[in-house]
């Protein structure tokens, strides 16, 4: 049972009347404590550069949870906020972008929430990466690379399973033996985390086919054509 009004209050207190370029993780500590909840083992699903697909997947298949499917992530998804020292204390007109200042309320929030999400993970964790982007499927500068990996607990997490997805009809820029995936493998193994990689995990590929039903890669045996 969660006290929703109290959770809103603790979110508000984290940023109201404050300089929006000076937000710290301590500001969000009460909120994180009130809104966090345990995550069942083997259900954590991390992602990088697959926002649309990964959330369509968790909406159809409730076996996995992304950060945005936890209470904290769900509440904050697609909304933004920032404060200002002058009344009314909340700025509805504009908020600093990350390029303007890193310690803005939104960036700090998601960094903290991601850290906690990683810390809470146990059992086999899944990661959905995009094998069709030129810059590489795994980037150490992403939230996944810079925050989540380092906060996975090797005593709780038994393995990290990568689902490397290619766009239907899209470039196969990287495979499981690709350069950035091998770097990811090394990083994980250095932390004593077992690594597996699967290209185009079938249930997710089926979901991609909803939008590309006539593509050659989506031909079903049972199809009448």
């Amino acid at each position, binding site marked *: 049972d969660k006290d*929703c009004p109290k959770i809103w209050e603790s979110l508000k207190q984290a940023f109201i009347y404050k300089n929006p370029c000076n937000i710290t993780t301590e500001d969000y500590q009460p909120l994180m404590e009130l809104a966090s909840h345990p995550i069942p083992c083997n259900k954590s699903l991390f992602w990088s550069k697959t926002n649309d697909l990964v959330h*369509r*997947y968790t*909406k*159809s*298949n409730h076996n996995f949870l992304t950060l945005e499917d936890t209470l904290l992530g769900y509440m904050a998804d*697609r*909304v933004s906020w920032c404060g200002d020292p002058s009344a009314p204390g909340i700025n509805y007109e504009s908020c600093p972008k990350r390029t303007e200042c890193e310690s803005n309320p939104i960036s700090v929030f998601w960094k903290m929430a991601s850290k906690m999400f990683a810390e809470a993970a146990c059992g086999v964790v899944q990661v959905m990466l995009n094998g069709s982007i030129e810059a590489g499927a795994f980037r150490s500068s992403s939230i996944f690379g810079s925050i989540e990996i380092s906060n996975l607990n090797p005593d709780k997490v038994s393995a990290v399973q990568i689902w490397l997805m*290619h766009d239907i009809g899209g470039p*196969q820029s990287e*495979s*499981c*033996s*690709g350069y950035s995936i*091998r770097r990811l*493998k090394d990083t994980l193994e250095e932390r004593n985390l077992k*690594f*597996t*990689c*699967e*290209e*185009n995990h*079938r*249930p*997710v*590929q*089926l*979901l991609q*086919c*909803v*939008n590309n*039903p*006539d593509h*050659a*890669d*989506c*031909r*079903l*045996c*049972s*199809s*009448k054509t």
Partner: protein
Amino acid sequence: MNSFFLSLLFLSLLFMTSLSEGQGKKWKGEGTTPNLESIVIGRCYEYTRIVNPSVGEKNCSELWEAFKNAFIKKDPCNILPTDYELFINLSLHTIPPNKSLFWENNQLLVNSFSGRTRRYTALGDTLFGFFADLLNWCGQATSPGLDYDSCPTTEECENNAVDSFWRMASITYAQHSSGVIHVLLNGSAEGGAYPVKGFFADYEIPNLQKDKISKIVIWVVDDIEGPDGDSCGIHTVKILEDRLKTLGYDVTCTDDYKPVMFLLCVDHPDHSKCAFSSSAPAAQRGPISSDRGGSWNKLMFVTFVGLLFRSALVY
């Protein structure tokens, strides 16, 4: 003797408490959803600010008041669709042409498939539908409060707050639908894919605006694990097709509409209906435990051919 009377007393106490528990609830159905007011007002803001800002600004508190006044302080078995008229007027917005999606016996699937207006705009993707979807509510005649304990089921009385709401919402949705109309039916449903008595049959079809509609497209999709019941051209689907044609509509019907099949397959990837045909290359690659297989072998092959070619050139 004493212990006998004690046990008798104990038993009768037990009996009385179980009796009173059974008699405590007025109705057989679940009570009003807890925190209903906060939920619907929040949904109203979420819809108008995030899901579909094109509907413009709506006064969400006003919407809640209009909704509430439709059924509070009234006999919970005497709520009529027209009681929600003000609520509908305040929450109405245009539905884009060619985006309407009607359905029967597959609510969660339709919800997934419509993608919250990204693919289609089902009733649950309109403001008035989004507002109340999957919630429950009722009032009572003797007080202005909501009944959180129990609410009448359809069997107990037809004119209950929830059913009357959805009748009004369905009528409105049908009246404002235009262009190509889509209907998704469940071929595995008991009793047939098209319920001859149901929301679609009784409240939606009669309220479609013929002059605004170009075509009606019917999709019949079976559950992946379900029986192959109805299909286009037979049984209840034929009844529907005939009814719509008689009304003067241009009707087409498709079995196993592929995009929906794929969506159902997400939960049954290993079912034979969901197997990719062998010419689909990407599907063939199975799990790799950090092995260099795939492209490494390809690289070797290409290098080998390249070397062969070079040596051939030299000679």
